[in-house]
């Protein structure tokens, strides 16, 4: 087990990167505490897998350092980093039994057979694989195979971190939930550092204590699920997390007053964007938009009834705003006035929050 730190890590798949767009990872400084459950969340192609492969040592970053417990391991090969990784598609050694699969990492490291037996039995017990230990691994179902991939990581007692690269992609939906709870349970029980890569916010928010949101090669925010929801640092986080995502509306700032389409808006941001900001916006989650006779006028264009609440889409000028409305509240027809909860409305300058 270990604390993992990334110092100014940059990576490009090109031999001679010049422009910032050449980098798959622009600049990452991150610290992963020992025993933490982290999720790496971001859209496809944002550099999640690259970052994961840099931690596991399958890739050496173009620049920067990777530290395990403050020791530099940037150039240390995968085998010596004592990490475990579960891939998107289950990796099992077809010709071996489930037992031999689980024992494989231990036997490769020359561990005594008696200890191998004990460890494999123990891990098989945790993963509910005891009954199939003597079977050939190739005959198992997808979730069984994925458990073996995970088990091969768990058997070693020297693992620094277990990394999951979208491990539930090929698992049937009704088994996903079970496997995810299993992971959570194992994390509590073993206290291992776990990093879970996914593009599914539900998976990330239910698994992790800390969610690292990545966008376009950079980490835009690290925080608990609640922090990400209540205080998004970046418009991307606001938009990506939450369903529906945060409303991002262009605004003008004049003499300290924030205006949206000519209407003054109160915000929680006490600061104001610098004059060099190219784009100023306000962000407010649909949960904090409400009908208000003193607000500014909008036109209602769509109402989606989701049972417990309704999502109302309204329009002013060419901007669309989504709002969540309690089921028992009546919705005005066509035109209405809305306002934003000042405590949950923030200013964003060029995408980044102004506090």
């Amino acid at each position, binding site marked *: 087990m270990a604390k993992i730190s990334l110092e100014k890590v940059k990576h490009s798949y090109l031999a001679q990167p010049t422009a910032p767009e050449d980098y798959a990872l622009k600049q990452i400084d991150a610290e992963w505490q020992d025993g933490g459950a982290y999720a790496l969340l971001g859209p496809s192609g944002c550099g999640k897998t690259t970052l994961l492969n840099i931690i*596991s040592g*399958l890739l050496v970053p173009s620049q920067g350092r990777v530290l395990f417990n403050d020791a530099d391991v940037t150039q240390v*090969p*995968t*085998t010596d980093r004592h*990490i*475990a*990784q579960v*891939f*998107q*598609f289950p*990796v099992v*050694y*077809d*010709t*071996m039994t489930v037992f031999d699969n689980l024992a*494989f*990492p231990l036997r*490769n*490291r020359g561990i005594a057979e008696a200890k191998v037996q004990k460890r494999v039995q123990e891990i098989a017990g945790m993963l509910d694989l005891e009954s199939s230990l003597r079977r*050939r691994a*190739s*005959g198992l179902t997808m979730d069984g195979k994925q458990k073996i*991939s995970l088990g*091969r*990581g768990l058997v070693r007692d020297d693992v620094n971190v277990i990394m999951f690269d979208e491990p539930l992609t090929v698992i049937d939906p009704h088994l996903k939930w079970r496997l995810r709870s299993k992971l959570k349970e194992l994390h509590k029980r073993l206290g291992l550092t776990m990093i879970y890569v996914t593009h599914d916010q539900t998976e990330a928010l239910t698994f992790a204590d800390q969610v690292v949101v990545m966008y376009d090669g950079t980490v835009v925010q690290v925080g608990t699920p609640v922090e990400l929801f209540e205080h998004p640092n970046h418009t991307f986080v606001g938009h990506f997390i939450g369903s529906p995502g945060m409303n991002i509306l262009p605004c003008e700032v004049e003499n300290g007053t924030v205006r949206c389409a000519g209407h003054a808006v109160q915000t929680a941001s006490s600061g104001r964007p610098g004059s060099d900001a190219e784009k100023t916006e306000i962000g407010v989650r649909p949960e904090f938009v409400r009908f208000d006779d003193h607000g500014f006028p909008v036109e209602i264009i769509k109402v989606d009834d989701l049972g417990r609440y309704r999502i109302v889409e309204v329009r002013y000028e060419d901007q669309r705003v989504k709002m969540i409305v309690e089921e028992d509240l009546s919705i005005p027809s066509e035109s209405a006035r809305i306002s934003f909860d000042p405590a949950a409305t923030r200013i964003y300058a060029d995408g980044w929050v102004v506090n």
Partner: protein
Amino acid sequence: MTKTTNHKAWYFVVPVVVLVAFNALIPLMTVVNYSVQETFGDNVFFWEGVKWFEDVLNSDRFHAAFLRQLAFTGMILAIEVPLGIGVALSMPRKGPWVSVCLVLMALPLLIPWNVVGAMWNIFALPDIGLLGRGINALGIDYNFTQQPVSAWMTTVLMDVWHWTSLVVLLAYAGLCSIPDAYYQAAKIDGASAWSVFWRIQLPKLKRVLTIAILLRFMDSFMIYTEPFVLTGGGPGNTTTFLSIDLVKIALGQFDLGPAAAMSLIYFFIVLLVCWIFYTLMMRNEEQ
């Protein structure tokens, strides 16, 4: 539920039946016809029963040709399969050299059999051929037209040169289809290069290798043109494989009865081996 029967549908099958009849069934039945009768020409036939089959199965000549055939097929399989896997493993997986390697590998497969035989014949001639002169220049007495060992060596070498590429291409395709995650997982599990080969690559290659072995078995077991052009079955009868012997009996001696019986036995051996292969393959799939 009532089933609609429409016998007119059978007409659609007729063209295929006619085609198969003329290119396979009727010629085969002619062979069957010859195999149970004796003829002296002029379309006069005498019934002989299974006499020709007994004769062939009991003849030392057939046994010798059969053993030579087994030895040849065994040798080329033992060389071409491991060599093919080895070459495929050492070929680049990406980059500009991939297409260069693939074209080089495909070249021998594009050369007609008789050309391969003629090429090697000239190449290996001890007085004018590059290979023949080269070996003799090393101080080794080599003459494939007179020495059985040299003749065998040349024939096997020629087949290896001509057909290893097939195994290489199949194995290479198999290797390319193994996802990267397997290699990464193996690294993480601390597997040695040998383990990676034995536990990942070879099991994943099993299916293509079965096909490669089956193809190479059938082709080499029925080989005719290349050794016929290279050695003509000689020196003596030392490289007379089954098909060469068969042609000698049928067209050289004009013993149509025994030749027909031998053809059928030959055919059933190939069929039997293919059936065994197929059954083993299917059984492995089920597991």
